[in-house]
């Protein structure tokens, strides 16, 4: 083989293999060799492994057949023969061709069986209208292209199989994670209830009054945590499956926020809230659900930034209302911020505070059901700020 041929082949090989899409790769393959091997039509037939029916999966009319459309010969019978005999089939008219008429009726056909993997799976047919007849060089090149086409189709099959496998695996992993997180979250409070109650039930030892009270308090708190966890899980499952019904009506989020603050303040004497309210236009929303979002933010602030003042700012733009909810607590490290709205996510090291990892997930789902947005900003040592933006609908 001379250097020129070798480098031509090399560049064709590289160009064809680089094409990710198998049809584009086949186009590239046929076009790049067309200088040496001229044909008018090419078609790839593949057998459906299920019912053995044969279908055309790739066809190009590049020469004289371009305008003939469906009337031209596509070599269906040659394909059948190539598959049936599992060998190359050459079919060309014996008599010399006249250049005048009926060119499309005088087709020179060259068919190859296609082996994909180890299986005979289809055929590739070249069609040349009105000659010239195929020379041994043409046949050799055509054979190379057929072989290559089979490899490209096999690559497509493998890519598809891998994509399907990846997707199945991802689904399974998500399900696994979900099940293992749920079972861990449920077992944790259950483990405390079981452990501390059986400690109190021990007959071989006695506990002093302070310890008994401490253990009973833990049992009580963990039972509450279990209840809350189950409620939150049901709620998040409803949000996830979109079966939670929202009742939309015009609401004023600033008034709603004040109500929630008053309600929480009645339960927590130490709650300090600093309001900086710009009057907000009413929006379309579900008041009960939005109140739930605000309650969650208050509860988080009470848990993670105890004793810090909460600053709430409301602002209105042309088409949005914005609620800024800032605490002056310890803040959240930047590496954890991207995950805090994920279901069951809890910032590591926060285990001393009870929680389910569902609160902010529920908040985000509710805000998104309002076509709004919620995000978090935090600086370690300075505090955490949640921002909620809700659209102001023109039709309330």
């Amino acid at each position, binding site marked *: 083989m001379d250097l020129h041929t070798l480098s031509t082949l090399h560049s064709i090989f590289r160009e064809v293999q680089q094409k990710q899409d198998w049809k584009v790769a086949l186009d590239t393959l046929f076009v790049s060799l067309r200088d040496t091997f001229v044909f008018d039509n090419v078609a790839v037939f593949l057998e459906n492994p299920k019912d053995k029916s044969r279908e055309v999966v790739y066809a190009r009319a590049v020469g004289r057949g371009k305008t003939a459309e469906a009337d031209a010969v596509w070599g269906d019978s040659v394909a059948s023969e190539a598959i049936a005999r599992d060998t190359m089939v050459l079919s060309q008219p014996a008599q010399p061709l006249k250049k005048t008429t009926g060119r499309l009726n005088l087709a020179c056909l060259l068919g190859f069986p296609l082996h994909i993997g180890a299986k005979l799976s289809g055929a590739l047919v070249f069609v040349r209208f009105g000659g010239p007849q195929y020379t041994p060089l043409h046949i050799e090149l055509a054979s190379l292209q057929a072989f290559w086409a089979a490899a490209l189709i096999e690559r497509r099959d493998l890519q598809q199989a891998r994509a399907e496998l990846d997707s199945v695996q991802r689904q399974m992993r998500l399900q696994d994670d979900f099940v293992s997180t749920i*079972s861990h979250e449920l077992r944790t409070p259950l483990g405390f209830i*079981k*452990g501390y109650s059986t*400690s109190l039930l021990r007959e071989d030892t006695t506990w002093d009054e302070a310890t008994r009270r401490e253990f009973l308090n833990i049992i009580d708190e963990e039972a509450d945590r279990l209840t809350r966890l189950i409620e939150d899980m049901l709620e998040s499952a409803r949000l996830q499956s979109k079966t939670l019904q929202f009742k939309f009506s015009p609401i004023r989020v600033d008034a709603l926020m004040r109500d929630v603050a008053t309600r929480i303040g009645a339960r927590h004497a130490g709650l300090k809230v600093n309001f900086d309210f710009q009057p907000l236009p009413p929006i379309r929303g579900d008041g009960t659900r939005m109140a739930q979002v605000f309650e969650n933010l208050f509860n988080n602030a009470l848990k993670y930034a105890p004793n810090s003042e909460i600053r709430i700012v409301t602002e209105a733009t042309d088409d949005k209302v914005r609620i800024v909810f800032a605490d002056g607590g310890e803040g959240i490290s930047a590496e954890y911020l991207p995950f805090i709205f994920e279901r069951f996510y809890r910032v590591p090291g926060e285990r001393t505070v009870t929680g389910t990892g569902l609160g902010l997930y529920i908040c985000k789902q509710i805000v998104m059901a309002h076509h709004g947005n919620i995000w978090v900003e935090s600086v370690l040592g300075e505090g955490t700020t949640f921002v909620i933006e809700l659209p102001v609908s023109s039709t309330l």
Partner: protein
Amino acid sequence: MPKRILIVDDEPRYLRLLEANLRTEGYEVSTAQDGMQALDVFSTQPIDLVLLDVMMPRLDGFGVCQRLREFSTVPIVILTARGEEQDRVRGLDLGADDYLVKPFSATELLARVRAVLRRARPPVETATGQARFFIHGDLKIDFARAEVWRGEDPVSLSATEYRLLLQFTHHVGKILTSEDLLGSVWGAEYKNDKEILWVSIARLRQKLENDPHAPSHIVTRSGLGYLMPPIEE
């Protein structure tokens, strides 16, 4: 002398639960809230038993179990919140003596602790017996942290290189055949892949030896295998 038990759990309420119950039985208690802390506590105090949670930040219970077993025979009881068989099997395979699935009752916990302590053999005092550190000339290994130094310089080893090195430190003075090393580090299906071992030993020598062509830590015994020669006192 009262037995000292190390409890490792990231939930303070589990630490409190275990500690309160163990103290009623007269045990001394040390605590750690993550795997790395557990290894540090273990190497500074005499510990008779480790109660080890699985799901922990930094280094999980399986990791702690694996590291401890590289230099210690201390009894280990795994506390797992997951009841899956594969978790229990994994813990036992990594060298745990028993496991307890959360939720568990206080009396069952105490019974398991008594049983495991009863079965426990007295600690073995050999060259690498309970020692956290291994020293061979200028080579130093901290088994608890899986760290290796050459003199003052930390050496970075791949997981396979570290496992290969441990084969030698655990059998100082003994010739190990290629089949032994390939089988225990790479697995039985690699027993005939001598070339993999050659490449790995060459790389290990590059990292550990002052003169890789005249090695002092991993020496070739032509036709027999490799060994880490005993250090003359």
